[in-house]
């Protein structure tokens, strides 16, 4: 997952807490192993390795996640596209170097969800070099699966926190909500707001997770699929929704929508908080 992950839940003692948390933690590890593009044995690696070759038959869980990615693609007007992972070959966020358009053009030719051939239970990426990347919703999916396991065991208080995407199971044991601070996009130790959450999910998408700055301009890891260049309109967007997958997708799509983000967020019906490029805070129901 490449980020700190924690489960917080109340129990009679540490041993009891471990018993409750163990299946949830195992589930998170299972999803990471299965869908990480960095693991050689993962389904995503298998799909990417078969690009340009024969259609690959897939299991139910992967098919369901691909169907979800399809819906996010449609709902976002083509902005949320899980085939844009190849663009990271041009962007190395450890080096402050902006790739020229000529470098991005061949990579952009390998992107486009509509190019992916889905037939029955198989998937084929028609061009060698095409890649799928579940990073846009994998962590959120794991958080919701872990939460479902904890809730099924009767856990009614606590939360699952996977790298800043939080799924709250229930309020603190005394009934008061969890006060969750939203990371300040420019100050490592700061927060721009604190939100009380009793249940549901809080996910944040921001331009501070992976980025470099050059000549006073910030280049972040959220890339516009049309141009291959990073979005710039928002520093961070946080969304509150009943499920982490919904909150995370809404936050990411809002970042991608740029100036049209507020219209999109208004239509989600969720509570949200966003800081624009100038540092101004916008919010709804928070």
């Amino acid at each position: 997952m490449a980020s700190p992950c924690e489960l917080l839940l109340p129990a009679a003692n540490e041993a009891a807490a471990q018993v409750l948390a163990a299946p949830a933690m195992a589930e998170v590890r299972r999803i990471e192993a299965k869908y990480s593009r960095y693991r050689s044995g993962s389904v995503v690696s298998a799909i990417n390795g078969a690009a340009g070759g024969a259609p690959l038959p897939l299991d139910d869980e992967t098919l369901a996640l691909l169907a979800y990615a399809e819906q996010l693609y449609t709902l976002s007007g083509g902005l949320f596209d899980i085939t844009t992972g190849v663009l990271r070959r041009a962007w190395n966020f450890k080096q402050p170097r902006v790739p020229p358009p000529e470098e991005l053009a061949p990579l952009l030719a390998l992107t486009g969800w509509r190019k992916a051939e889905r037939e029955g239970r198989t998937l084929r990426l028609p061009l060698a070099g095409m890649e799928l990347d579940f990073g846009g919703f994998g962590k959120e999916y794991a958080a919701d699966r872990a939460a479902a396991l904890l809730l099924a065991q009767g856990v009614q208080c606590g939360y699952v926190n996977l790298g800043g995407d939080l799924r709250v199971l229930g309020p603190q044991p005394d009934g008061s909500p969890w006060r969750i601070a939203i990371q300040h996009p420019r100050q490592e130790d700061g927060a721009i707001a604190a939100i009380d959450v009793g249940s549901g999910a809080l996910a944040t998408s921001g331009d501070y997770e992976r980025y470099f700055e050059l000549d006073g301009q910030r280049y972040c890891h959220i890339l516009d699929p049309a141009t291959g260049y990073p979005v710039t309109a928002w520093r961070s967007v946080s969304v509150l929704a009943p499920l982490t997958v919904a909150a995370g997708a809404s936050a990411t799509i809002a970042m991608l929508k740029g100036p049209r983000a507020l219209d999109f967020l208004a239509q989600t019906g969720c509570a949200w908080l966003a800081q624009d490029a100038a540092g101004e805070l916008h919010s709804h129901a928070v």
Partner: protein
Amino acid sequence: MAFKSDMPPGQALMLAALALPGLGVGLGVPDAAAQTLPDSATLSVDYLHYKDEQPGLDRVSVRSPAVRLSLPVAGAWLLEAGAVSDHVSGATPRYHTAISGASRMDDQRHAADLRVTRYLANASVSAGAAWSNENDYRSRALSLGGTISSADHNTTGGLSLGVSNDTISPVNLLVTGERRHTVELQASLEQVLTQRDIVKLDLTHAKGKGYYSDPYKYVDKRPRKRDVNGLLLRWNHALADGSAVRTSYRYYMDSFGIRAHTLGAEYERALGGGWALTPSLRLSTQSAADFYFDPVYDKRFGPPFPPGYTFGSTAFTSADQRLSGFGAVTAGLQAAYSFGDGWRAHVKAEHYRQSTGWRQFGSGSPGLARMDAQIWQLGVSKQW
């Protein structure tokens, strides 16, 4: 899955998210208490002090220490036990609100109750017993109940049956070894309406036979049977800031002719730092019993005899203020503090005032003095 193009994106996104496998239904449904096994045990010790008075007469004073234990066992059972020891002393009017000749008492009452509940996936079964002893009154009761919930635990129905046997032997030996037998049936329905609202309806029907008269009051003769019907509607609402509003309406109707309505509300607000404040208000109104008579007395015999009284008559009659028509207001304030580590303390003060003129839906019984009562409660509890 295809979407209608005019579906709002937020709704479409949620539907898409819900279609993902294995995410469960756990969307933060609030804890609709009492149909799932509590996951912690609680021991609480409380002290209650009650004092009532009317102008010119301090009446009854009750000091009541109590202890209560709630213990989940083996993941499926709940054991609940309580014991209370009331010390009742003071004076009560022998008829209406007459001050002279008021009867004095100094009495100790010990009571205990025990309940065992077995929780199943979507149901529960419970059995309980209660005992109460004082020098002139003994009560034994048994009850059996069950609840059944919908799969999502949002709807819970319950049914319970209770039987109690009382033995009355007043110290003035007016009667000895009188008995009272009551059977009570209760049906309840609890529904989680939204993430923030729970409503509960309880319907009660009880049939009783035996001795209902008050042997310490002059000229008190009540029917040897009493049927009671009750309805209790409760609504708990959680506000967005974490505070809670609890409202209730109770309707009481019995075969003595008493009809009573009670409206209650309390607002619990966490103040931060572990403190919570709960102001409360209760308004009630009741009609007089059919055989209650106003303080207008027989021309021949004078008080306490009702007009037209004949000795040896078997007519029902009572001058008990509690059977009169009146309205009442109770205002209270509770402060609670959580020490952390499961310890909690609370102190509550309530003031009750009952007055003839406050009766709604009719005129109250005239000629009775106003009655006031102060109730203090102090409690400490530990959860683990």
